């Protein structure tokens, strides 16, 4: 009988953190993707047909950011590689639109991932198509007469559509249609209108097969998913600790305040990535002294995530800069959002100083200009036609990048704001 030494509390906590962090940050693949059964089966069937039966296919997986496209693909590929025939034969080429920004770079990457650098050597090819045909031909010589099936995964598929002439896409889809080699082309993209980006000749070679990943979770399923994400797996070395932990997580999910927080998040975005950032911030507070999750952690994490960064930045401005922002807000209110220039803002400010202000004394125009330029640097004010500087600086038209509500909220929180400035901001007419 093997003696199982129970781990210390610190080790348990550390191990729990490790597991949770891998799940939340490193996007470790779950055993089965949640609520994506039909898409999973569809994709698996397609890939099986390519791998085992030698049928060429092309499919696009479309879904908003964070909806689980890469996760779905990862799970499917994992299951595919567990099949014996696939393991021996299938070659995987993974391209990413962010990295392979050019067709030449993409071709080099394909050569590298197929391990055909030596075969290609120093050959010079006339066109992309020739190069690709050579590569696929080279795969044939390896074994028998039939070539090995190749699965091309194109991440950020819409970025490939911006390459010159879309040669890579055209050639890959051409190969998938002309049945020389069994090839599966899988594209992952976040753009719903990706087909509009493709040229006519490319679009006609595409099989128009799309798998959509729109999250269809209800709120109850969402809370269940939260519980599942936070629970420790059954094969945790210390069952007592994991039971206690899972119990506390279940109780946490039933509390009203936590439910409110989760509902707020659910209403703004259903995808798992934003959920993971919320959970990660709460889980990172767990340590030896604080060994279970409390609702205060979740509350704090939620507040951090939903903070308005522009209103926070306004908190650190000087009084002069704040007055300039209020002057711009008044100009926006009076003239319905038409662009203004520095002279107009300075004029508003001068009117305020002369009529209403007691605490702020007059500043010279260059000092006010320097404050205005600080606001420009913070990008709270932007020129209308960015870059064209044929006009003098004082007369260049600008827009305020803040909303009425944000300015008023920032004023409430501003430390030691003089009352006449507040009154000026609240008055309807300057």
């Amino acid at each position, binding site marked *: 009988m093997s003696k199982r030494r129970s781990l210390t509390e610190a080790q348990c906590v*550390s191990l729990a*953190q*490790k597991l949770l*962090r*891998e799940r939340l*940050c*490193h996007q470790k693949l779950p055993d089965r993707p949640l609520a994506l059964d039909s898409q999973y089966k569809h994709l698996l069937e397609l890939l099986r047909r390519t791998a085992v039966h030698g049928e060429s296919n092309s499919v696009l997986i479309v879904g908003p*950011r964070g909806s689980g496209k*890469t996760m779905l693909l990862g799970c499917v590929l994992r299951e595919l590689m567990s099949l014996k025939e696939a393991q021996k034969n299938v070659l995987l080429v993974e391209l*990413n*639109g*962010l*990295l*392979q*920004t*050019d067709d030449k*770079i993409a071709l*080099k990457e394909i050569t590298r991932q197929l391990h055909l650098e030596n075969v290609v050597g120093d050959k010079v090819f006339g066109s992309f198509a020739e190069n690709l045909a050579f590569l696929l031909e080279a795969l044939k010589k390896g074994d028998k007469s039939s070539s090995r099936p190749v699965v091309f995964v194109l991440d950020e598929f*819409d*970025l490939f559509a911006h390459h010159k002439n879309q040669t890579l896409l055209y050639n890959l889809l051409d190969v998938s249609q002309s049945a020389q080699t069994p090839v599966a082309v899988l594209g992952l993209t*976040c753009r719903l209108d990706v087909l509009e980006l493709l040229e006519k000749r490319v679009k006609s070679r595409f099989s128009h097969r799309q798998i959509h990943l729109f999250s269809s979770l209800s709120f109850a399923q969402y809370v269940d998913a939260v519980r599942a994400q936070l629970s420790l797996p059954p094969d945790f070395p210390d069952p007592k600790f994991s039971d206690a932990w899972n119990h506390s997580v279940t109780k946490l999910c039933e509390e009203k305040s936590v439910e409110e927080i989760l509902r707020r998040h659910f209403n703004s975005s259903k995808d798992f*990535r934003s959920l993971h*950032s919320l959970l990660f*911030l709460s889980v*990172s*507070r767990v*340590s030896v002294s604080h060994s279970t999750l409390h609702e205060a952690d979740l509350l704090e994490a939620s507040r*951090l*995530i939903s*903070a308005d*960064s*522009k209103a*926070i*930045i306004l*908190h*650190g*401005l*000087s*009084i*002069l800069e704040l007055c300039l922002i209020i002057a711009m807000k008044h100009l926006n209110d009076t*003239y319905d959002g038409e662009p203004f*220039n520095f*002279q*107009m803002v300075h*004029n508003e400010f001068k009117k305020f100083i*002369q009529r209403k202000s007691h605490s*702020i004394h007059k500043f*010279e125009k*260059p*000092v006010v200009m*320097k*404050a205005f330029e600080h606001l420009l640097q*913070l*990008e709270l004010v932007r020129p209308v036609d960015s870059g064209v500087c044929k*006009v*003098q600086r*004082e*007369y260049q038209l600008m827009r305020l990048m803040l909303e009425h509500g944000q300015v008023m909220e920032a004023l409430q929180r501003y*430390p*030691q704001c003089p009352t006449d400035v507040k009154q000026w901001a609240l008055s309807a007419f300057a």
Partner: protein
Amino acid sequence: MSHQKSFQYADLLSVLERVVDIMSAPDQYSYPSVFIYGHRATGKSHVVLSIMKDLELPHASVDCVECVSSGLLFHQVLSAFFGPDAAALLPRCPSLSDFVRLYKQMSSNSPATQTRYIILDRAERMRDMDFSLLPALLRLQELVNDNVTVILLSEIVWEKFRPNTGCFEPLLFHFPDYSKGKSLVQILSWDHHPSYTPELYASYINILLGVFFSVCRDLRELRHLAVLNFSKFCEPLEKGEAKESDIHKLWKNIEPHLQRAMQTVYLREVSSVQWEQQQMDEKEATTLRVLSAHAHIELPYYSKFLLIAAYLASFNPARTDRRFFLKSHGKIRKTNFLKKHEKTSNHLLGPKPFPLDRLMAIFYSVVDSRVAPTASVFSQISSLVTLQLLSQVGHDDQLDSPKYKCSVSLDFILAISRCVCVCVRLLDLLALSLVIQSQVVRQERSLFTAVSNLHLL
């Protein structure tokens, strides 16, 4: 600022706690990207780098201003993590694909035992580099399959960074700014001169903040101003005119000096060396030679009139020319049109272009002696354009009727017209154009009363 003292301020502490929590388990994975934002000189780079050094975490710190091309960034990161030999393997103009491939290769040889951190300072510059650099770096952990976290530090909020089709959203943290009472005075008092008491320096800082705090909160600027002006503050003490407890006297001595500093050193019109020299030989009360041209530009006689004529041409609409410049005009009628459209006042919208003929017409009516239209007069117009007091509008190849715009402000024109021995009628014209067309501001009123006083003389 390399002070070893710790901050005791609640806001900053709570942010620091969160940041350290994230980095606290170096052998485990951390969130792929973190974005820290806050105003200038709030200590973002300093604090993050100090944490890295104290916890002895492997990190690569890159300032994006130095990275003119993305290859420089890749080079710095690879040499910080894997040594200069790895960086030498990068090809000539490395693409992001080369960087990721090389990183994967190196990290499979030496996998990360602790989380590696890439710190990108002034990350707002990355938006101007390759469009795919920012989204790729935000998900670098996934792309290279290694335990690496990217920390972005910036002054600008995250909403301005997000690419069009979205990207991996980092965790956002805000570094709070300093409050006047507790933190700022304390930090600035760290620079106190050893030969004076800290209380004296603290009262000096309070006086300085009283003048400058409503204008500027940047710690670096305030420190610079504090260091420059302290010797002037201590002058009465050294001369024996006041004791350390005579705060009022010291305040009366330094306050006008600080006001002058706001108009010169703060605006960088004068260099700090010039400022210090001026403090030393302060008896003559010399006027400082400021950078901007206003005080000391010397123009020939007719150029001054040309410039005044150009100003009048730019800021008065053409239909009012007859009223102002012809001797036989009727009464001056204030039109309702001008009153209603206050915003479209020329003084707010900027100078309008005018053709050369109109400039010459106004010039002849403004100048007091008879001037022949010689080449020397016309060449002065071109020199005014070279000096950027006038600017040419339209194409260079339009030789027939070139158009110009006046690019100087009213203060400059008033200064010029004062030093030219100008007749009353000129001031009259300026005053009239201002009163009819501009907002009612005290400056114009006073000018009008000054003009009417001159009439009475």
